[in-house]
């Protein structure tokens, strides 16, 4: 005889009783392990996706609109891969299927060596394309199919520049050569996100040819993590060409520094201005709409601003200084052709008309008058067509009528003599102003200089000076760690293990309660045994150890089987997430993955929880005197301690307090006042439930033996017997009640469809349409000219107002992305437009204000950029609160902080952070154009306007959707999770009704003599069953009644609120389901119980 032997004998003897306990622990363990492994699977799938996207790449130079030499890659390191990465819109050759936001990559063999798996990939031949699986799936493409890709040509001019040509897209017709799987780098992406992105791969040299950017790339990829070493190599090998600078010798002993980007960037300009080794003359040539003298005018001409750029130039005469020696800021020189054309002479006033982008980023025509300071002959520098930079749409035009300068041009104004001038002199400026005057008129954030001239002998010195003075990082030439954020983005935004634990909470709780209940039964059955141990001198510790050892073994067996079943549960949940609950994960492909540690954790949690509940039950038993235990003879009543009538008045007071508080909340709270109202009504429901359970307690305690309520009928007797074990009965009622309440009340939080999208304070901000484009839109959609140039119907668009937003592409921070966003997309918006409309409802702001949108323009400590986001994205995806910050890197490689100054409630703004447009432009000056649009339009014509915009901006890949649809897509995610909670809660309820059956079986077992006596007295089996059913039917009714009434309190105000789409159908359905399930279990348990009562028990010892 040993302790272990005693434990094992106990287990063997009570095996049938223990079977239920093992089953309950098994369910708890299966649910626990299953939920945790769902977390593993989501985490694994996201991380696998992240690794497939980033491959072996660790560092990258991301040039965007800036192009550098492809050769630079090999000069830095043989393994560095150059590429061109641009956005595009893809469509099937018949145009039937279209895919926006395609990532188009021009690559060579070096790219494929960084693939996550297959390393021997080669680029397709010219005119062919490799697409990834996602793109093939979405466009239904196969190898050999034709495909049209429209891509944005990297622009020499920033998109927002007044002279930038509007449409810079190029259409590429391609044949699908291969569908590239993820292992072969098909899913390459430097951005985070859970959804696979559409990728198209073409040969790099071929793409360079198509885009007319021979030998250039805008992306360098390296497998090295040593960013410092890479930057060192880059600093050593970069040339002026990588900064898009060009030095060329002119005929007159002069040399010129110019840039492919037309205007020098600010960092280059500041180096040039401070350069002292050489006299530098600045040239700033601009395209004007006309020169006017009185009523005479010369249309569309180049005007050149000239003058010394640095101190050395001011001290050293040159051809330029000779020309402009007499020119002050108010003076202008006309060339002889223009002077003749305008019939102008010195001293007359000449007016220049020209386009600029104004403070509100609109194209406006301005005028400025100068005094004619002189007429210059067309010779020397005054007859130099090279003073005009290579303006796209102008420089390559054979004649004036082919001009496409990006600003409106009235070709009717162009005369034959203008055509002749173009033929003879090209872009030779017709007028000259001082450099200061020119910069005053035309300087913008894109630059204020088009060329620099200097003596040819200083060419090398200037080259060296620029290389020394310029930090390539300030031109975007720097390696950044792309792997860490990509892998960090491979973690889930939400702890899915925790989430599914929460969603399965009631099921787990029900299983643990059931196991506790069963253990309690076991302890009650063995009360005399416990008493014997005490009488024989065993300490309480020994008895506790003995019984807990049994529980430990039982729970271990149950939890181990449960852990295995839990893996099946995970597969079931993953199947659910892939099918019926697919909205919850935005169609991400999840793969089953279980980490041994997670399974062990779930196992240990289940065992610990079972032990804890057993400890509680045992504590009660060990508090009972041994003599009482010895007398229990298998029928111990653990709830007996204090089970008397107690102080009913106290319970009545408690119930009354709960009900009156609930009523108070219902009367005070306005159900349509936002998320807080939902919480308050849920609390009111919970208070009602508590009160209802207290009332049940009173009823059960006061209808017991000795209280002749119900009369002397079989049903009355049954009702009275239901309070025979009030604690047991109350626990069952509570389990059913809480389950019913949770399942129904939580369902009321389902978000209905958006009913009034024109309401400014709603989640739509009052906008009816939300549009996004794959390529930048530079036209002003509010301007009739912009609309006209896009071919939009002026009449239809009359009532349309658009709030355009600039976009820094980044991680999707909406709930449609499962992965944790590392750098959410930034939208640059004119906050005044949203402020004027009082759009969206704010739930929190950094400082109290009546105009929350104005906070975007307020300066913040440390130069942080103020940002506003959707509260759902901030809370669940970014895990940021108001006042917290996020780090970004601007276009020039400088880090900056974005600080949250406000959060808007449940809105279409999910997924990105909004900052002031002006700050956006300062930080990302070359990210021109707009890509996201909030559109005010009459709701009735919204479909027509949406179609019109999609058609007009088809080449830019614009897709418009109603704001209601967008909001509903977000709501679908939340609703899916509620569905999951309800489904799992429903399983918990089912388990609750199993518990009801267990209580019935146990009670009837204890009363087997009573039931046998009834049979001996002539009761039929049916009568005995009715007797028992009445007893437990009451518990079912009480549980269902308590839960349903509490749920009604929580949801009725919501249902009755104006415009509510919720109705009581689901409520009734759930009540019916619980009632049917409970009744079925009762009937089954009743049948089993009655079958188990032989008459022999009457004569049992």
């Amino acid at each position, binding site marked *: 005889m*040993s*302790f272990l032997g005693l434990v094992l*004998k106990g287990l063997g003897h009570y095996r049938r009783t223990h079977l239920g306990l093992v089953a309950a622990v098994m369910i708890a363990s299966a649910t626990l392990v299953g939920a945790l492994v769902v977390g593993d699977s989501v985490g694994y799938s996201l991380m696998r996706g992240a690794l497939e996207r980033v491959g072996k790449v660790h560092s990258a130079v991301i040039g965007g609109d800036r192009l550098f030499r492809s050769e630079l890659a090999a000069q830095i390191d043989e393994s560095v891969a150059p590429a061109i990465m641009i956005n595009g819109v893809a469509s099937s050759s018949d145009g039937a299927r279209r895919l926006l936001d395609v990532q188009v990559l021009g690559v060579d063999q070096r790219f494929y060596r960084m693939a996550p798996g297959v390393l021997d990939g080669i680029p397709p031949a010219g005119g062919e394309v490799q697409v990834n699986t996602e793109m093939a799936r979405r466009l239904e493409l196969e190898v050999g199919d034709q495909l049209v890709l429209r891509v944005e040509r990297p622009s020499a001019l920033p998109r927002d520049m007044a002279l930038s040509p509007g449409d810079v897209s190029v259409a590429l017709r391609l044949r699908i050569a291969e569908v590239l799987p993820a292992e072969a780098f098909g899913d390459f992406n430097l951005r985070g996100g859970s959804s696979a992105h559409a990728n198209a791969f073409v040969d790099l040299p071929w793409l360079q040819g198509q885009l007319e950017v021979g030998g250039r790339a805008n992306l360098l990829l390296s497998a090295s993590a040593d960013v410092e070493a890479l930057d060192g190599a880059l600093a050593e090998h970069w040339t002026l060409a990588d900064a898009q600078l060009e030095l060329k010798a002119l005929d007159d002993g002069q040399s010129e520094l110019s840039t492919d980007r037309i205007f020098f960037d600010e960092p280059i300009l500041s180096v040039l201005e401070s350069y002292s080794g050489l006299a530098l003359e600045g040239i700033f040539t601009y395209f004007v709409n006309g020169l006017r003298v009185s009523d005479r005018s010369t249309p569309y001409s180049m005007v050149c601003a000239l003058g010394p750029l640095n101190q050395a130039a001011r001290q050293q005469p040159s051809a330029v200084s000779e020309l402009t020696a007499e020119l002050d800021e108010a003076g202008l020189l006309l060339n002889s052709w223009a002077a003749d054309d305008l019939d102008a002479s010195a001293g007359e006033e000449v007016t220049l008309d020209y386009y600029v982008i104004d403070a509100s980023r609109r194209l406006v025509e301005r005028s400025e008058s100068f005094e004619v300071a002189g007429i210059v002959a067309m010779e020397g520098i005054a007859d130099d067509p090279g003073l005009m930079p290579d303006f796209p749409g102008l420089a390559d035009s054979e004649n004036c009528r082919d001009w496409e300068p990006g600003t409106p041009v009235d070709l009717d104004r162009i005369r034959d003599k203008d055509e002749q001038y173009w033929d003879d002199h090209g872009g030779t400026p017709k007028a000259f102003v001082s450099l200061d005057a020119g910069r005053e008129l035309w300087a913008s954030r894109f630059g204020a200089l088009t060329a620099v001239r200097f003596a040819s002998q200083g060419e090398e010195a200037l080259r060296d000076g620029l290389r020394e003075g310029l930090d390539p990082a300030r031109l975007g030439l720097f390696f950044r760690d792309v792997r860490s954020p990509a892998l960090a983005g491979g973690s889930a935004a939400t702890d899915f293990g925790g989430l599914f634990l929460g969603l399965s909470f009631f099921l787990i709780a029900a299983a643990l309660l059931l196991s506790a209940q069963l253990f309690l039964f076991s302890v009650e059955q063995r009360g005399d*045994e416990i008493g*014997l141990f005490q009488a024989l*001198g065993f300490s309480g510790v020994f008895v506790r150890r003995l019984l807990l050892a049994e529980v430990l073994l039982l729970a271990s067996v149950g939890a181990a089987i449960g852990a295995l079943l839990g893996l099946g549960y995970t597969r079931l949940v993953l199947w659910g997430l892939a099918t019926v609950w697919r909205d919850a994960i935005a169609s991400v492909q999840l793969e089953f993955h279980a980490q041994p540690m997670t399974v062990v954790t779930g196992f240990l949690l289940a065992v610990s929880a079972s032990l804890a509940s057993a400890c509680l039950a045992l504590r009660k038993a060990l508090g009972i005197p041994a*003599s009482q235990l010895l007398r229990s003879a298998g029928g111990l009543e653990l709830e007996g301690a204090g089970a008397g*009538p107690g102080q009913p008045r106290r319970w009545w007071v408690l119930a009354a307090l709960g009900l009156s508080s609930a009523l108070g909340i219902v009367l005070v709270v306005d159900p349509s006042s936002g998320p807080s109202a939902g919480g308050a009504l849920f609390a009111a429901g919970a208070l009602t439930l508590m009160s209802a359970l207290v009332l049940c307690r009173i009823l059960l305690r006061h209808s017991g033996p000795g209280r002749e309520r119900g009369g002397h009928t079989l049903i009355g007797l049954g009702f009275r017997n239901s309070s025979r074990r009030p604690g047991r009965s109350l626990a069952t009622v509570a389990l059913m009640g809480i389950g019913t309440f949770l399942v129904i009340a939580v369902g009321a939080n389902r978000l209905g469809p958006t009913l009034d999208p024109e309401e400014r304070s709603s989640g739509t901000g009052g906008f009816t349409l939300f549009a996004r484009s794959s390529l930048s839109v530079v036209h002003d959609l509010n301007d009739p000219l912009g609309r006209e140039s896009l071919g939009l119907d002026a009449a239809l668009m009359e009532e349309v107002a658009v709030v355009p937003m600039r976009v820094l592409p980044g991680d999707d921070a909406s709930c449609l992305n499962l992965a944790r966003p590392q750098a959410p997309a930034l939208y640059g918006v004119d906050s005044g437009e949203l402020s004027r409309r009082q759009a969206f409802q704010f739930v929190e702001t950094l400082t109290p204000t009546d105009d929350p949108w104005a906070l975007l323009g307020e300066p913040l400590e440390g130069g942080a950029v103020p940002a506003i986001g959707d509260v759902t994205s901030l809370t669940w995806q970014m895990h940021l609160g108001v006042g917290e910050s996020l780090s970004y890197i601007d276009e020039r490689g400088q880090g900056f902080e974005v600080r949250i100054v406000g959060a808007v409630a449940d809105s279409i703004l999910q997924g990105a952070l909004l900052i002031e447009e002006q700050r956006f432009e300062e930080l990302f000056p070359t990210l021109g154009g707009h890509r996201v649009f909030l559109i005010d339009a009459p709701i009735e014509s919204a479909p027509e306007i949406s179609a019109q915009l999609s058609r007009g901006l088809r080449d830019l890949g614009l897709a418009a959707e109603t704001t209601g649809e967008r909001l509903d897509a977000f709501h679908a995610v939340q609703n899916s999770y509620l569905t999951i909670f309800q489904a799992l809660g429903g399983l918990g309820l089912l388990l609750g009704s199993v518990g009801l059956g267990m209580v019935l079986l146990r009670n009837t077992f204890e009363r087997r003599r009573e039931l046998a006596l009834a049979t001996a007295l002539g009761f039929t089996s049916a009568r005995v069953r009715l007797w028992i059913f009445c007893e437990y039917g009451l518990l079912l009714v009480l549980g269902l009644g308590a839960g349903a009434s509490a749920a009604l309190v929580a949801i009725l105000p919501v249902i009755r609120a104006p415009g509510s789409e919720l109705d009581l159908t689901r409520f009734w359905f759930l009540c019916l389901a619980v009632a049917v399930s409970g009744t079925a279990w009762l009937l089954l348990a009743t049948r089993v119980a009655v079958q188990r009562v032989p008459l022999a028990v009457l004569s049992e010892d």
Partner: protein
Amino acid sequence: MSAAPELLRLEGVVKSFSSTTGERGELPVLEGIDLAVARNETVAIVGPSGSGKSTMLNIIGSLELPDRGRVLFEERELSSLNEQELAEFRNRRVGFVFQHHHLLAHCSALENVLLPTLAQSDRGRSSGHEERARDLLERVGLGGRLAHRPSELSGGERQRVAVVRALINEPDLLLADEPTGSLDRAAAAELGELLAQITDERALAMVVVTHSMALAASMQRRLELLDGRLESVEVPGSPGA
């Protein structure tokens, strides 16, 4: 009063219970019990059902605490012992025999007898316990029933196992609560003889609560519990009669 040294003394022990319905107040059971038991003395307590005999026995065995009064065992007051000391007291100094045998259904006769030894060590078979258990079972005529489970034994046999279990740790005091209450006349007589023989042989003190006049008559002293108080009674055929 016995001439032998005193083993147990009860002084003014009072015990009452509250009514189960809570409507009839406190129900007095023992109202100032005084009792002294000498070593090797056997005492029978008789009285009508519900008079508090078992309660008194439980108080002596420290299974219940008195509301007032003192219980002294070898001059040491039981209320001064902590939980561990009380457990040890019940295990080593006292042996219990109940009306219902309270044998563990899942253990054999031998294992049931050895059960109290586990309170001292997780492996009760050590230190000669098993040998003693076998001897004792042999002694009460159950040598051939060692491996039988309680369900395979007769009522008298079960009760004899219970007696042997009470003796396994060689206690000083045997407390028996209606030990023959559930046995037929022959088995009851047999058990009575056995108890008398054992107490005599082992110089044990015994307090037995019984309705059986025959069993009471075999004890050295007989007391009746009536209205919460103890009174000496004479039983025909008893040693003192």
